[in-house]
């Protein structure tokens, strides 16, 4: 008896199982296997089939047909293209504006605390609240912005039904909410820069721009890279705002990858087709992760 116990203790795997330590890991392991790993495998598998949700017993293998179809699907292409547009409209502006505002209010003072609270306030609203709030504010008939424009003598704007205006408008709404948190991260980084660096630069006669370029930027490069990555992945995951505000319209001009996948999977029940979109989306996420790794490695030198 004693001998067996000794043997179990010596074997790492057996000890892990029989000492009960495995119970610490098991619940999470089960949940992640079922709800993360298994769905990823399903997505790859389904993407080569014509799985239709209402006919689960009538699935046949179709090879790369779903992927070919995406290449010819006007609305799918639009959705991918729109996601790229969202990234182009949102990411640079969000990083630059949050850095700009962070620099203006980084110094600790009472007035700056007030401004910080004001700038941070959109963050406590949920995405659904932000979407519905702005949907009403920018309403073409009764929204305050259009009434305000009209009182100044400008024409009313169809913010959400004009195909050229809808995507920039939604980008603005996302930007409006997104700046707050990124600003906070950059502000904390700015406050960590020792003030002696700036004093030394002043003695050497450096102007404000030179100080920003040679002291501020290099000191917070890590956090800027972090913000850049977070905002980029976040922007690719856009779904609630276009779903709630425009339902992807007009004419698919605001749809995103995830929204299109959601529509194909739920409204049209084309699980095979939606899964092919999932796989492409997963590949995009992997590519972003690779870029992130490279940037972080460079940062660490």
């Amino acid at each position: 008896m004693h001998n067996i116990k000794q043997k179990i203790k010596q074997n790492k795997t057996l000890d892990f199982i029989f000492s009960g330590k495995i119970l610490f890991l098991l619940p999470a392991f089960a949940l992640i296997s079922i709800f993360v790993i298994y769905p990823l495998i399903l997505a790859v598998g389904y993407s080569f089939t014509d799985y239709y949700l209402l006919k689960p017993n009538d699935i046949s293998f179709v090879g790369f047909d779903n992927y070919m179809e995406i290449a010819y699907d006007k609305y799918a292409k639009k959705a991918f293209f729109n996601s790229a547009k969202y990234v182009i409209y949102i990411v640079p502006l969000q990083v630059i504006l949050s850095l700009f505002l962070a620099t203006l209010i980084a110094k600790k003072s009472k007035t700056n605390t007030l401004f910080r609270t004001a700038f941070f306030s959109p963050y406590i609203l949920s995405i659904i609240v932000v979407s519905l709030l702005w949907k009403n504010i920018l309403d073409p008939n009764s929204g305050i912005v259009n009434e305000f424009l009209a009182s100044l003598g400008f024409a009313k704007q169809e913010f959400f039904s004009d195909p050229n205006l809808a995507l920039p408008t939604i980008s603005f709404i996302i930007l409006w909410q997104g700046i707050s948190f990124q600003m906070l991260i950059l502000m904390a980084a700015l406050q960590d820069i020792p003030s002696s660096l700036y004093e030394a630069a002043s003695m050497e006669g450096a102007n404000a721009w030179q100080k920003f370029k040679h002291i501020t930027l290099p000191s917070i490069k890590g956090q800027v890279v972090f913000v850049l990555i977070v905002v980029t992945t976040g922007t690719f995951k856009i779904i609630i705002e276009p779903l709630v505000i425009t339902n992807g319209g007009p004419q698919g001009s605001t749809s995103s990858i995830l929204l299109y996948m959601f529509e194909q999977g739920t409204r049209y029940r084309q699980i095979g087709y939606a899964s092919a979109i999932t796989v492409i989306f997963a590949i995009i996420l992997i590519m972003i992760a690779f870029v992130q790794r490279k940037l972080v490695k460079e940062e660490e030198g």
Partner: protein
Amino acid sequence: MKGITVIRLLKYIVLIAFAILFLFPTVWMLVSSTKTVVEISEEIGSMQSFIPNFSNIQNWLIPYQEMFSRFNFSIHFFNSVYYTFIIVFGSLFVNSLAGYALAVFDVPFKKFITGALIILIIFPFQSVFIQIFIIINQWNLTNTVWGLALPHIGSAFYIYLFMVFFQRIPKELRESAYIDGASNWKIFTKIVVPISRPIFMTIGILVFVGAWNDYVWPLMVFTEESKYPLSVAVNIMNETKPAYLNQVMAGLTVTTIPILLIFILGQKYITPQNSSSGIK
């Protein structure tokens, strides 16, 4: 000297302009939720629409009462609270245990498991919700709280955050208890958890906000309206004709209040350092 004053003035003009831009929608939401529909539409476009009507403070809550009775709002509010608490406690329980095991125990294939976790962080819930829906559907878990909550509980990212935190706890704290004959479970619950409050609070707040704000997944899992959380109910409110703007704004305000409370109560745990520490 004069140049500096002009720059300072300019800086404050820019700051005030941005403050107005960030604040005016929320202020309008709050103020409109206390007015009558007629007042709102008469004042729209003027400064008056941002100023509450102080002459009839006793009527401010009428839109709230109307909204609660018209939309069964309390049911949806209770649903949201119920779902959120299950997800928060489930997530803290499951992920902290796993993070502790990986930080402290001699787990076989540890390198492989932690490596796999870091790779899985790349794939968020949203990327596979169609396939998760198929699983939930096959298990007949649609329209149940478990269908909503289970997929949200296990998280590679939070396991990783817990693991990093637990690795920093000095070994000696655990070892002396181990020699005294305490079990692993006892050491975890009696020694490790009490001194790890910050990480539990931080992750708890993150999960709370995520669960409270979740919109697309509840829309997929629930077909019975009585089970909708606030996020879904508030959208239905906005789309139900006739939509009374004051009631809609009251609904949005009520949806926001719990998040505001969480942020005020957990202020010191939500720091940028906490949320960016897991990335490196």
